[in-house]
């Protein structure tokens, strides 16, 4: 229970940071109440005020969190608050009044007020957001789709069970449902584990860590101890992978040649160049 209270308290702190929608709601409510315009929509204004207070105070937020099941995080209790509706109502009443006023500058003043309000609203969000992160994700998605397409094209009819870098596994199942995986993205996106009772055993975690080393080895630098362990455990990891049904392994093309040779020796097959990747197939 204490954890729920802590989550509720921290949840509100987190909710109001980043963007200002909650602040806009409170401003709209204050405007409606203090100008007497809330009387025109008393039911909505009272409901929105009470529900917002209930979401802000940890004592009332906790029962709401329990009500919405523990499956959802704190921010979802705000679904009970008509945040967009009431803020839009406040905006409408305020702007309509500005445009109806004939005194104090008339239309130019109304235009200026509207533009300033629009600017304040847009600045209260997160203009552009994390554009860099989105661009990276999109590039990864594109790459994964291309790889899935190449696999289907090159190995038609094969029941592929793939082991590949995380960025490929992240999207490959949505690109091609026919490709099976030793582990999916619920290994690193733990919230997905709520959708199934299935769990991964230690061998899968070891394989995931090992593939992470492989990816690092294709980069500029990796710790020597990790590199040594990657080579030492290669055969064991490949045995585990084969036991899990893996029959197609993708490495980034930048991995050391020594690693490719070790893999070829361990699997008894030749690697094949596959775009920006090296592929080892067991079928």
């Amino acid at each position, binding site marked *: 229970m204490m954890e729920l209270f802590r989550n509720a308290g921290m949840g509100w702190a987190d909710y109001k940071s980043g963007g200002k929608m909650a602040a806009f709601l409170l401003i709209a409510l204050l405007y409606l109440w203090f100008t007497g315009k809330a009387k025109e929509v008393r039911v909505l204004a009272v409901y929105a005020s009470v529900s917002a207070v209930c979401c802000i105070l940890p004592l009332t937020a906790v029962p709401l969190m329990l009500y919405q099941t523990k499956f959802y995080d704190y921010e979802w209790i705000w679904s009970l608050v008509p945040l967009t509706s009431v803020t839009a*109502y406040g905006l409408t009443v305020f702007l309509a009044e500005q445009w109806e006023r004939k005194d104090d500058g008339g239309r130019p003043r109304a235009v200026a007020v509207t533009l300033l309000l629009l600017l304040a609203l847009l600045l209260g969000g997160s203009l552009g957001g994390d554009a860099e992160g989105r661009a990276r994700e999109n590039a990864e998605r594109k790459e994964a789709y291309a790889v899935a397409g190449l696999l289907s094209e090159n190995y038609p009819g094969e029941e592929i069970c793939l082991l590949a870098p995380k960025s490929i596994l992240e999207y490959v199942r949505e690109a091609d449902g026919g490709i099976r995986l030793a582990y999916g993205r619920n290994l690193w996106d733990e919230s997905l584990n709520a959708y199934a009772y299935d769990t991964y055993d230690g061998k899968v975690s070891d394989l995931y860590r090992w593939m992470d080393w492989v990816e690092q080895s294709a980069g500029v630098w990796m710790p020597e101890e990790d590199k040594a362990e990657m080579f030492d455990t290669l055969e064991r990891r490949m045995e585990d992978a084969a036991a899990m049904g893996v029959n197609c392994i993708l490495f980034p093309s930048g991995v050391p040649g020594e690693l490719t040779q070790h893999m070829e020796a361990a699997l008894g097959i030749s690697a094949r160049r596959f775009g920006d990747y090296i592929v080892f197939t067991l079928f």
Partner: protein
Amino acid sequence: MRKNTFRDCLMIGEIGVIGLAEVSHLAAVFLKLSFTDCSRLYAVCLGVLAVSGIVFLTAGRKHIFPAFHRERQGDFLPGQRLLYVIFAMTVISQLIFIGMGNAIYRRGDMMAETVESFLVSDGIYQVNPMTGMPYTEGMPLRLKILCLPTLYASLCRWTGIAPAVMVQRIVPMAVLLSSYVSFSLLGRALFPGDGKKRAWFLLGVSVLLWVGAYRYGMVGFGLLCSGWQGVAVRGGVLVPWTLSLCLRRRRLGVFLCILAEACIVWTLYGCGVCLAVGAGVTVVQLLCRKLPGTSANGKTGHSAERGDAT
């Protein structure tokens, strides 16, 4: 039903689509039907719904369409047309944003993989969508009975569109448009007889959806970045309509929203946000009615009802 507007009928139809998806989905889960049979069953159900809808609209056209026509052809106040043009431009920009797919948020969500799994395995949850391997321990029943994957997979099956495109682009566009239908109904309840304020309200909503796209959990974010999710449908479509229905004292529609939410979102035994909002607004309405001088209930009671007919 007599005073339902055309947009109310659209919302009822949408809930009907969800309800029939749930029926087909449950039939497939409990009777262990293949996905092909499930989608055929759903197609038949949708056909029946479409015919019933046409019959209903034809029978009730005097009550439904006159209001619709008056609304479209009625006199626009000065500036109202301009507001609607700006609103339309905002909506188009949002549709383009969704269509570009540059801000798809899929953390904690596996809808595209689930739909792909249904299509490839020709079964409902025959394999774990994350790996494509058969389940070893299974999955929660409450999750298993949610119908959106079947709805989207059926759309993919009938149209041949790839699941990722259908789920992450086309469905969110449809949900966004539904959301505006829902908010326009709320606008009618809040500003009966004032078309210009309704235009301001819709424009305000469209701007706030952009503004709210900064954070997971916001209505704007749900509609623009993950519009296929049940919580996005709930927040953008069902809750505004629930509010509008409550303000117009249409309890039957609220019941439909509660059912629809139970079909698409993991709730506490069906007790979700629509029920809480419906109950909360009803309690406030009862309290307001008992307070001296507030019996008229502002614009939320009978005047709103009148607004439907204007």
